[in-house]
């Protein structure tokens, strides 16, 4: 029962409501930090940590925070978490701290975090919110890393900093390439999830109709949603 519930929360966060590809939230960080796979992976994990901590804290305090001032309260909680993260990164992972630059303090205004606080953590118990935080964060990390890998490979022919092929397409490392790769990635994600849903629906319809033993069903054509 519980496993099923947490599984659903996790699936929603990772795929159905994927923050980067489906909801298109937190775009600034996605575009700005995806120049290399390592950078985008680091950014994704940083957001995940902040998201988890802020979700847990807000969920704990959800009965204490008055409804009228909840947004400022959430923002202060998130800002505190980001400040802590900034100190930790500056001390222990200075490379990542340097490459993130202005995008590190800007995690505060990442819509994904405030969005999850408002839509989920302020209404659900602590454990659920923690699962939601991790799932949403990992969904975002996965998406960011994917974009990062594509851009790094096409832009400099390397994979996580290791030279794989000897070519360079400068377009993909600058701003225009970021928009292009992100747009194409969203389109691909929409296309694939749409196809998957279609197949699932057809299978369900067959399962429902099969026991009745009626006339044979038409084959799957992929044209069945109207």
């Amino acid at each position, binding site marked *: 029962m519980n496993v099923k519930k947490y599984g659903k929360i996790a699936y929603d966060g990772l795929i159905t409501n994927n923050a980067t590809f489906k909801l*298109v*939230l937190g*775009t*600034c960080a996605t*575009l*700005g930090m995806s120049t290399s796979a390592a950078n985008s992976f680091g950014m994704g994990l940083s957001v995940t940590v902040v998201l988890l901590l802020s979700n847990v804290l807000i969920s704990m305090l959800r009965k204490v925070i008055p409804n009228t001032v909840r*947004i*400022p309260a959430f*923002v*202060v909680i998130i*800002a*505190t978490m*980001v*400040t802590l993260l*900034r*100190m930790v990164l500056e001390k222990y992972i200075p490379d990542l701290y340097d490459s993130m630059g*202005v995008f590190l*303090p*800007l995690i*505060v*205004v990442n*819509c994904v975090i*405030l969005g999850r606080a408002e839509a989920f953590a302020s209404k659900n118990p602590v454990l659920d919110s923690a699962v939601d935080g991790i799932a949403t964060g990992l969904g975002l990390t996965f998406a960011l890393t994917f974009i990062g890998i594509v851009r790094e490979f096409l832009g400099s022919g390397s994979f996580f900093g290791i030279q794989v092929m000897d070519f360079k397409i400068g377009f993909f490392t*600058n*701003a*225009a*390439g*970021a*928009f*292009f790769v*992100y*747009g*194409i990635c*969203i*389109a*691909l994600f*929409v*296309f694939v999830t*749409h196809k998957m849903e279609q197949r699932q629906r057809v299978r369900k319809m067959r399962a429902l109709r099969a026991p009745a033993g009626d006339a044979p069903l038409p084959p799957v054509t992929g044209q069945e949603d109207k």
Partner: protein
Amino acid sequence: MASTILLIVISAVFSQNFILVKFLGICPFLGVSKKTNSALSMGIAVTLVMLLATLVTYPLYMYIMVPLKIEYLEIIFFIFVIAALVQMLEKIIGKISPALYRSMGIYLPLITTNCAILGVAELLLVNEVSEVVSGVAVGISMNLGWALLYALCSGLGFTLAMILMGGVREKLEKLPVAKCMKGFPITMVAACFMAMAFYVFALL
């Protein structure tokens, strides 16, 4: 002096455009740019808040937080100042000009979580103008005047990109687009071509 002003203007509006080169403030760029009118209103609102936020956060940091050695609290302080400013501005505009409030008011609450505002406040915390704007002679120290000019020009650059995008999207609506490319993907690809155009300024 004059060349510094010119460099800041050109750099903030074109070659280091906030949306298309620096990737700050993409959420309103994608969300509120369906029509040229709403894009213009959003742009003006952002420019105004940017200017006011810089006017408060820069002195706050330089003259209060640095002497007290509480620089590490900058994120919390800045976001609070911006949220309070936006709330205040909303109330003031609502009282003074209801017509303006109706056209701009709905965008104001969104501005609190706009990366561009916090971004400009964070970017300006440097010792020299040349750290923010490339090409400026080394040795010109940052002060409130330069900071305000930079904030104003960044806001104008933001508005310019918003209006351009609004125009492009009005045309895009009428075109036949593949199903999976509808909405965000095609907007991103359009933004890609705009970013290419702005990239030329950086090469000059």
